[in-house]
């Protein structure tokens, strides 16, 4: 049952990766990256139950922090480049 759920979440990561590849603008790619980060956090949380190792929860927390900071930096960079030009 848990293996099937992990495959389902991997399928969700694959679908949002398609949007990450073919998004027309930079903002579409950043939205897809943010969603991929959140889905990967829940995948790591499920993996920590399956493998029975709680180090995956720390990895998931670091993943969430990095995704948040990356999203904010890309959004601010997008606006700042627009106002300079």
């Amino acid at each position, binding site marked *: *049952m*848990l293996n099937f*759920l992990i495959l*389902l*979440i991997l*399928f*969700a*990561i*694959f*679908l*949002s990766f*398609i*949007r990450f590849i073919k998004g027309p*603008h930079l*903002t*579409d790619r*950043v*939205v*897809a990256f*943010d*969603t991929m980060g*959140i*889905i990967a*956090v*829940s995948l790591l*949380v*499920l993996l*920590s*139950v399956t493998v029975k190792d*709680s180090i995956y*929860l*720390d990895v*998931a*927390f670091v993943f*969430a*922090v990095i995704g*948040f900071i990356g*999203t*904010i930096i890309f*959004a*601010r960079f*997008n*606006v700042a480049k*627009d106002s300079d030009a």
Partner: protein
Amino acid sequence: MLNVIGLILITPGATLLVISAIGLLRMPDTITRMHAGTKASTLGSLLVIMGVAFLEPTLWFKLLFLALFILITNPLSSSILARSTYLKHGFFNMSGMDDLKDNR
């Protein structure tokens, strides 16, 4: 008993994550894609984390910390993304309302 409750919570969470990824592919505009991609995935990941807390009750503190972090930072980042999208591209405006027009 706890295993059954955990699986009952995790299964709709994973389904919501897949639904949010499908909405990310099918929606026509950046703002509507953000509507599918941030709200549904927030609820899905919170349901998965709650289900895992029922499966492994000894890990509840780390899971609570992770859930609080996602609950705080995810609306914040989506708000900043929506502002940046509005300033860069505008949006698909059918209603004629645009309250942020003066700050552009």
